């Protein structure tokens, strides 16, 4: 959410995405899961730099503060047999014209200590202009608390190559405290959204969590492969590398 972004980024987004951005910004100082979920679904916008991510370029022994670093591609046990399109932020898959997935691995820590590893996955199925994200999945090598899944539908225009959220389409799910090694999903039905007023769209998801013994919130977000209007009220996914700008990000916030 916005409190995790650099101040200049917040200002830029606020100018572009009012009033949604302002609503999210109101929750900037809040630190509880309740406040986080109250601000859920407020897609972060064209984020470029995330607090804590600058630590990823440093050796572990030289890191300070909180950090979360992507390290994809993820293990074969999680990934699909579909090879997909992979970057350091994750892998994107197109299974058919109406089904696409995303997977990633991230390592998060505090100072010179790696606390854990997370495995992330979501899959989107299209039905006309309706999207269903299921499963939206999370697994951590260590116990985490206040895990929140978030979702939003994005639309793209030449002015918004990174996508902007569809108003009112955001949603979230508080999964709560998750034991180490347990795979959890957005239950019971995942995330659904409907929008048919833009020819290019995607679905955005974020996972955010706290640690019992450390301050702050770690987060990881990603956008699906873009899907386009093919007529008769239906949308199809493009190629697995057909991504908007800034297709994924991760980091840490004080909130």
């Amino acid at each position, binding site marked *: 959410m916005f409190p995790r972004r650099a101040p200049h980024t917040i200002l830029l987004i606020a100018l572009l995405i009012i009033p949604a951005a302002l609503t999210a910004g109101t929750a900037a100082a809040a630190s509880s899961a309740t406040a986080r979920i109250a601000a859920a679904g407020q897609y972060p916008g064209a984020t470029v730099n995330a607090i804590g991510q600058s630590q990823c370029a440093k050796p572990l022994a030289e890191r300070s503060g909180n950090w979360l670093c992507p390290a994809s591609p993820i293990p074969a046990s999680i990934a699909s047999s579909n090879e997909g399109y992979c970057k350091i932020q994750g892998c994107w898959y197109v299974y058919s014209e109406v089904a696409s997935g995303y997977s990633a691995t991230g390592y998060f820590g505090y100072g010179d200590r790696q606390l854990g590893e997370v495995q992330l996955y979501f899959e989107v199925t299209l039905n006309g202009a309706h999207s269903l994200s299921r499963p939206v999945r999370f697994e951590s090598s260590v116990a985490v608390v206040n895990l929140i899944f978030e979702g939003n539908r994005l639309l793209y225009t030449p002015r918004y190559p990174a996508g902007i959220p569809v108003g009112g389409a955001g949603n979230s799910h508080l999964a709560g405290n998750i034991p180490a090694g347990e795979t959890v999903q957005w239950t019971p039905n995942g995330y659904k959204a409907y929008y048919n*007023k833009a020819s290019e769209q995607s679905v955005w998801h974020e996972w955010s969590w706290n640690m019992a013994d450390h301050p702050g919130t770690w987060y990881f977000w990603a956008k699906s492969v873009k899907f386009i209007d093919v007529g008769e009220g239906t949308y199809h996914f493009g190629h697995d590398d057909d991504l908007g700008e800034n297709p994924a990000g991760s980091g840490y916030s004080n909130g």
Partner: protein
Amino acid sequence: MGEQLLGSPRPGHGRVFVNCTRQGEWWASWQDDYPDDEVRDGEPDAGVEDFEGTQDEVIRWARTRPAEKFFIFSDEAHAYLPLEPADAAELPAAAEHRYVTARAGSKQTVIPPPPATPG
């Protein structure tokens, strides 16, 4: 820009789409775009209802919607094909408790559809 308020589909209008996820979960969605001249600011501009269940339940639900057009996604054709009508009596009854709507998992505003245009 980019906001859509949702209401209910209007009988006699819209398209019903049927699809199956890669996990084998069947899902139908009835989607009706309201005419622009019937939509005022702050009111829904589309109606959506959806349903999940077994293949038979979902196809029965789809075929029994009073929509205008009906489609089912074909992995072989890589596209939606017309959902051919069938004798509804041959299909098992849909389990109403499995009925879900787009609104159930979304914050999208739901307001009743606009009144029918006189004449």
